[in-house]
């Protein structure tokens, strides 16, 4: 279906990534946001607070990120598309509810405008050091989806996609911005509502009595209802059976946890979203994501001028990781170069996919700035030797 025109600010804008992310959420149909101020993400909720009264929905500034991250789950079970927005310290506080969203299969979008850490770290400066936290941060086994935009335009476009994926798979979807993407101002084109494809929640057509909250029909994603519709559902963070009732036994645990991870793992190929630039036949492949991809692109250009056959693979969806595509490229490429604004996180995934069949060169950067292109260029040249 198409976007609800009420939320779509069609036109050409000159806005930053935080504002564009908010517009993406509104266009996607998000009508309930709970948040707590934290640099460098606050502009997202400030814009939402300003825009939502006339769009028709609610913003509430909660008492902390713990409250924000569960208020949105309440909003989702009331039938709304929901989002919360934060940065590192707030993300750490939200982790318990990432697990609750995962086990109750509550669609939601969590925006993380990454800043330098650990702890309070660098509130106003960029990093990409929460990549493993969003993958593994809550206890227990589950899967999530993460997207990494590199421009205000992508903050809009990919935010719509983030909401669509949350509804399709009923998982928390992380929107992994960083301080630079959040605060850079660029041209953002917002299309007409009829040009924006929206995925509606997977509402059940079954009647109360026939419906079982966590029964699935082949695709591993159960149909959903909302409170107030007469289904008298029970939703719990305990391990539960098809009815949603607590089931404290290893069989129920096995069945539920396998499905929670497999509904994403079995769809990995469908979920691949990468941008490829000259990777076929390249000797060296640079793997990058988010803001670092823009710096890496400059380094790749410079290396090509120096005669190196270098390709660039940019991850749009960072989780699940496109291991299969990386593996395919190990036939030709002799080295992978992985720059990122952390001390080496996604490079571990590249290493796993490459499995010793090519060299993998990490280009870590602790954050605070982006890389100098020359640093990445030097590693490409080294890899090409």
């Amino acid at each position, binding site marked *: 279906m198409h976007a609800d025109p009420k939320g779509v600010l069609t036109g050409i804008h000159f806005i930053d990534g935080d504002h564009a992310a908010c517009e993406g959420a509104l266009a996607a149909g998000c009508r309930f946001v709970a948040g707590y101020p934290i640099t460098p993400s606050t502009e997202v909720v400030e814009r939402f607070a300003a825009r939502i009264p006339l769009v028709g929905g609610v913003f509430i500034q*909660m*008492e902390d990120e713990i*409250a924000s991250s*569960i208020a949105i789950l309440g909003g989702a079970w009331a039938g709304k598309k929901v989002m919360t927005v934060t940065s590192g310290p707030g993300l750490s506080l939200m982790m318990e509810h990432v697990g609750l969203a995962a086990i109750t299969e509550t669609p939601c979008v969590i925006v993380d405008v990454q800043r330098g850490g650990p702890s309070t770290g660098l509130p106003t400066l960029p990093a990409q050091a929460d990549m493993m936290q969003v993958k593994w941060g809550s206890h227990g086994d589950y899967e999530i989806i993460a997207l990494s935009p590199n421009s205000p335009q992508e903050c809009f476009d990919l935010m719509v996609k983030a909401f669509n994926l949350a509804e399709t798979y009923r998982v928390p979807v992380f929107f992994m911005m960083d301080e630079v993407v959040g605060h850079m101002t660029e041209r953002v084109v917002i299309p007409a509502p009829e040009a924006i494809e929206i995925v509606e929640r997977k509402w059940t057509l079954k009647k109360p009595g026939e419906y079982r909250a966590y029964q699935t029909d082949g695709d591993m994603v159960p149909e959903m209802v*909302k*409170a*107030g519709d007469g289904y008298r559902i029970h939703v*719990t963070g305990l391990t539960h059976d098809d009815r949603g009732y607590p089931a404290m036994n290893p069989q129920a645990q096995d069945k539920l946890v396998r499905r929670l991870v497999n509904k994403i793992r079995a769809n990995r190929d469908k979920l691949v979203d990468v941008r490829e630039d000259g990777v076929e036949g390249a000797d060296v492949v640079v793997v990058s994501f988010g803001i670092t991809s823009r710096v890496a692109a400059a380094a790749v250009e410079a290396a090509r001028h120096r005669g190196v056959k270098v390709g660039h693979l940019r991850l749009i969806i960072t989780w699940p990781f496109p291991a299969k595509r990386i593996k395919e490229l190990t036939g030709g490429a002799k080295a992978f170069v992985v720059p990122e604004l952390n001390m080496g996180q996604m490079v571990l995934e590249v290493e796993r996919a490459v499995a010793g069949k090519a060299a993998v060169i990490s280009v870590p950067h602790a954050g605070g700035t982006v890389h100098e292109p020359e640093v990445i260029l030097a590693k490409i040249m080294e890899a090409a030797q």
Partner: protein
Amino acid sequence: MSETDLLELEIENPVASYLRQERLPHIWCPGCGIGTTVNCFARALTESAMDLDRVAIVSGIGCTGRVAGYLNLDSFHTTHGRAIPFATGLKLGNPDLKVVVYSGDGDLSAIGGNHLVHAARRNMDLTVICVNNFTYGMTGGQVAPTTPIGATQTTMPYGNFENPFNLPFLADACGAVYVARWTVYHVKQLAKAMLEGLRKKGFVFIEALAPCPTLYSRRNRLGDGVDQLKYYKEKSKIVNGADTKDVGLTFQGDIVVGRFVDRERPTWLDAMNEHYSQHFGEKYVPYGVSHGQD
């Protein structure tokens, strides 16, 4: 009349239809007061004549946290301490719902204390039922923010020396529009308070004192559940409209019960709609204003 004859009468328990029968028996210990509060709540629902499809119940974690799972309503068993913010999202997501938070003293006032004070401050339209058994039952009887000074708990093995919360005073000070306390000895009054709480618009806080014979009473040599009921009966004094600062509890001391606060204040949503209507004029469509049953 023999037992068989009684069974043949097929007398239905009047609260049976409010329970998920397939989930029984429940997990609560003999003599526990939580089940009594659920009985009172079911009676309040009956009296209220509400459309039960529009009543949702949210619990946190703990013995009382299991209430949501036994009631035949839309029910949500959330994380420890966070029932109130989940309920806030549920209410704001669909203002047509009557949202009840049903949880324990540790869940609501220790780990969830920050949410309690802010939801009361905002006058979020939630009916909060707090079963206070003075202890953490599910984890084996540790000290709670409600444990009276002098009571022994596993993490206060030589007796509690921490000052406890006076929960009605806390809720009152933060802005709750309805505050009451009863014990599970006062089943009629508790059911009536729950009914009033369901009908009240705004942040309602009802404290229900309940025995935990397994972990609180036994460790303090207070006998069983019945002995605690006798204590409630003998030491309770009904003072409706009591100043909440005077209703703090002491170890086996006097208990002031009653309806302490009943006042009017705009809810968070009403305040938002009123404010935006003034600010934006006719451009603003009030949010969540019911257009009748659809």
